[in-house]
């Protein structure tokens, strides 16, 4: 996804639950989001859209669903 920001969430995840949460939040914030990696310890999401809403997306996902625990969030530029 060109021009996207990749947000990396580290922690303990129920993958299915967290990915559903990511997709719901991205849809609500009208962002394009693609899950690039999803393991029980690490989720990487490439996301693009209005910068303020990308920030809101990161904040929402840092809380995550009740059955997941996000310990760390970092950003990196998406590969082209």
């Amino acid at each position, binding site marked *: 996804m060109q021009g996207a920001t990749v947000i990396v969430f580290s922690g303990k995840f129920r993958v299915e639950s967290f990915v559903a949460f990511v997709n719901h939040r991205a849809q*609500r914030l*009208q962002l394009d989001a693609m899950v690039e990696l999803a393991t029980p310890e690490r989720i990487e999401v490439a996301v693009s859209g*209005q910068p303020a809403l990308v920030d809101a997306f990161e904040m929402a996902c840092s809380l995550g669903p009740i059955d997941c625990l996000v310990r760390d969030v970092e950003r990196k530029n998406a590969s082209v």
Partner: protein
Amino acid sequence: METGWYPVALAEGLERGTSTGTRLFGRELVVWRDSADTSHVWEDRCPHRGMRLSFGFVRDNHIACLYHGWQYDTSAQCRYIPAHPDLAVPNTIRVATYPSIERLGIVWAYDDLDSDAPQDIGFAERAPVTPVRSLYIDASAAKVFDALVLAECPSLKDAGGATQRSRTDALASLKSGGDEILVAVQPLSDVESALHIVIAGSPDVHSGDSQKRVSAWGEALRREIEGAAGYAGELRHGVAP
């Protein structure tokens, strides 16, 4: 739970520029009235962080969440986010709404979110009505109706003969001669209900004494339903003036 129209508030009790929270079958609703006097019934949850919108502020034609001030217009669309004043708010950020209407001096909601409600609410408008009060009862709507089908219409201005009773899914009518009261039953949960009581007829006729009598009648009904048997006779034999 049956999909249909249910009362959620007395219209007169919902002043312009105010909001209140209530429940329907255990789900939380915000009921608010805008500056144009139109009432709205929405899910009581800001899409941002889930704060109850009933705790928020109504300003002109929008309601703002108490938590971060996100503002929603009368179509439930978020229009302004104070932390990002220049942001073009996407149309995906909106509150889920219940179809609503005002009839008989009561705000009604159709308990199916974001649906097209049937136009037929099950009864006709009856203007004018005199609002009395809302009452909260620790009993299911079914138990409330069990009591209403036995209750007598309180004597007001033009009583005459035995009480005639009729009902729809959420509304009971008790009529005696020219007197008639209407009781709308809101299922708050499986074990709690709210009654919204009005008198059929003009406030010019029924303000004051009639309202007090019907209010006392409602309290007696509540005591009977909740099991205070000592007061049961009031319902059968009328409320003392």
